[in-house]
């Protein structure tokens, strides 16, 4: 059954940031298609994983990796807001505030809203979503096949999430009607889950409550008939923490909840990621007429924090050793290849090296494949100068347990499937090395034990 995630705004992106980590650690077994829509920049960690998934492609379909069907990530930054400018400029094409005296825009927006700079999003002003259009989305971005489960994730208090949740759900339903597809549409909705920096959002927290009401009422009144089947509401009780948008945009070593915090209540975004997995995989088909009854109030966390932390430590250290210990280089000189590394890893390595040799035309040129592969492993894992790698996607942890070479022979490496290989993807030695490196890191992370 197909599963689709639609992440809206900064909150939707942050939930996907954590969800992708759980997938890469093998804690989420199924594949999914993620669509990210924001008026602000797409966070760097999502871009890194998106690049990894692109590098993993092996067959003709974008989700066809070696031995597994992988997720896809489509990102859309609403281009009508790119380049910034105030709401007034966007709506009237003029920066002159006096134009509002004679322009109908004044009837819908107050002076403060019109003065809002839209360079970094809609700043908790959902009404401004009328400034943007969903035309930027490709035709298929919000469509899903029959019987698919679609989960929309976003914050009702934010500008982008609050403003786009209802239109996006409407668009999804419209696409489904067009294709005669029956969807199970669900949502993870965030209420006031953080304390804004003073002065960053005009009107501050009063605006949040009003936004929440606006979005919930619009969903209930306009879309409850055929709309959301189930939803989970993330709204921590008690004090909330501040957000750090700059750190979030980089997506570098963002912290995880404490092991004692089983559901991640003290990390609302983590709780949202858990709710997302629950709603994606929950097979309950009961339909409730009353909108309020569709709220999921309690669920067992599909991935408990302690189990996730345990796997995180193993996976990060195994993948790290693959890079630090120059495994790709040392394997070349090993006379006891199978005794040390098992049979599957050398087979996989030889498969990619063989492709490189074939495409390079002569074996001699492919002789630099091992060092190219080791370089690519390092680049993908550790990043380049100034650009973070996959390692920085995960929290920074102290080294906790020893990884021995046998950890690699225990991994169920995929078998080569030359018949389904898309030859155009492997036309250069460098691209073959990059795809091989992505495959080795992906399996090391997901199957580390």
């Amino acid at each position, binding site marked *: 059954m197909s599963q689709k995630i639609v992440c809206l705004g900064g909150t939707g992106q942050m939930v996907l940031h954590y969800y992708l980590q759980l997938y890469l650690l093998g804690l989420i077994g199924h594949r999914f298609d993620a669509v990210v829509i924001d008026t602000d920049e797409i966070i760097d960690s999502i871009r890194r994983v998106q690049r990894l998934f692109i590098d993993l492609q092996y067959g003709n379909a974008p989700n066809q990796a070696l031995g597994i069907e992988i997720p896809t990530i489509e990102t859309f930054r609403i281009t009508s807001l790119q380049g910034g400018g105030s709401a007034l400029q966007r709506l009237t094409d003029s920066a002159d505030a006096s134009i509002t005296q004679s322009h109908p825009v004044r009837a819908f927006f107050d002076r403060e809203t019109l003065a809002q700079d839209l360079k970094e999003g809609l700043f908790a002003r959902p009404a401004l979503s009328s400034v943007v259009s969903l035309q930027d989305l490709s035709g298929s971005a919000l469509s899903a096949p029959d019987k698919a489960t679609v989960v929309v994730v976003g914050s009702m208090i934010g500008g982008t999430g609050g403003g786009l949740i209802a239109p996006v759900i409407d668009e999804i339903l419209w696409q489904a009607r067009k294709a005669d597809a029956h969807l199970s549409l669900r949502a993870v909705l965030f209420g006031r889950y953080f304390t804004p920096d003073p002065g960053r959002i005009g009107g501050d927290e009063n605006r949040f409550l009003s936004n929440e009401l606006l979005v919930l009422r619009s969903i209930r009144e306009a879309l409850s008939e055929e709309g959301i089947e189930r939803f989970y509401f993330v709204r921590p009780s008690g004090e909330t923490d501040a957000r750090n948008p700059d750190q979030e945009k980089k997506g570098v070593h963002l912290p995880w909840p404490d092991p004692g915090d089983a559901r991640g209540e003290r990390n609302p975004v983590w709780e949202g990621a858990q709710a997302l997995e629950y709603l994606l995989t929950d097979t309950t088909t009961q339909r409730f007429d009353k909108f309020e009854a569709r709220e999921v109030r309690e669920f067992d966390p599909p991935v408990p924090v302690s189990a996730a932390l345990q796997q995180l430590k193993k996976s990060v250290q195994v993948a790290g050793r693959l890079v630090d210990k120059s495994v790709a280089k040392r394997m070349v000189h090993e006379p006891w290849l199978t005794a040390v*590394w098992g049979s599957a890893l050398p087979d996989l390595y030889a498969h990619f090296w063989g492709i490189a040799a074939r495409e390079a035309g002569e074996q001699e040129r492919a002789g630099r494949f091992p060092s190219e592969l080791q370089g690519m492993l390092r680049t993908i894992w550790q990043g380049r100068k100034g650009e973070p790698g996959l390692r920085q996607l995960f929290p920074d942890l102290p080294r906790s347990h020893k990884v021995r070479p046998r950890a690699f022979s225990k991994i169920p490496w995929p078998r080569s499937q030359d018949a389904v290989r898309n030859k155009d993807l492997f036309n250069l030695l460098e691209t073959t090395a990059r795809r091989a490196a992505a495959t080795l890191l992906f399996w090391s992370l997901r199957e580390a034990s």
Partner: protein
Amino acid sequence: MRSTRCRVAGSVFVALLVHAGAFAQSLSSPTRTQCKQWDDAYLSTFQTGLTVCAVATLILPFLFGLLVGRLSWIAAAPRLRIVVVGLVVVLLVELGVVALPWMVGFGWLWFSPIETRYFDCIPLQFGAQGLFRGLMGAGVAAVAQWPTLTYLLLLAAAAAGLVAWLISEFVARSFGLSQRARREGA
């Protein structure tokens, strides 16, 4: 506390051995025939040590890789393990054949045919055969040539290590990953 006691006991042990040697020395000086016998016996032990050093440096890296490769990163590094095994073998043979007699004297285990009085032969002219049938250090007691013996052990280990590396590379190229890749790419 415990380690201090051990250290004291060890010092006493070594001192006793040295004194025992000195006592034996004071008893009587060795004859030229005895010196020749002991020198030949020491040379024979050293040559065995040299052979062990070379053979162990040649064979052990392969066994180390085969048996411990899954457990140790050093054993899983084909070149590094030759260097590490070679150095460890040299160190052990150096200790067992060259250094220990100077520390605890002769008359034990593989030095049982040699008496500690062999050291008294160093200043004597007793017609010492020298290393490699007189090619090196003829006329000098073998035990006195410990720097040369050390270099010879290092040389033997280096030569054996080189051969081990050549064999390792040959096997890796003929049956290893590059060969598998060649088959895949064909």
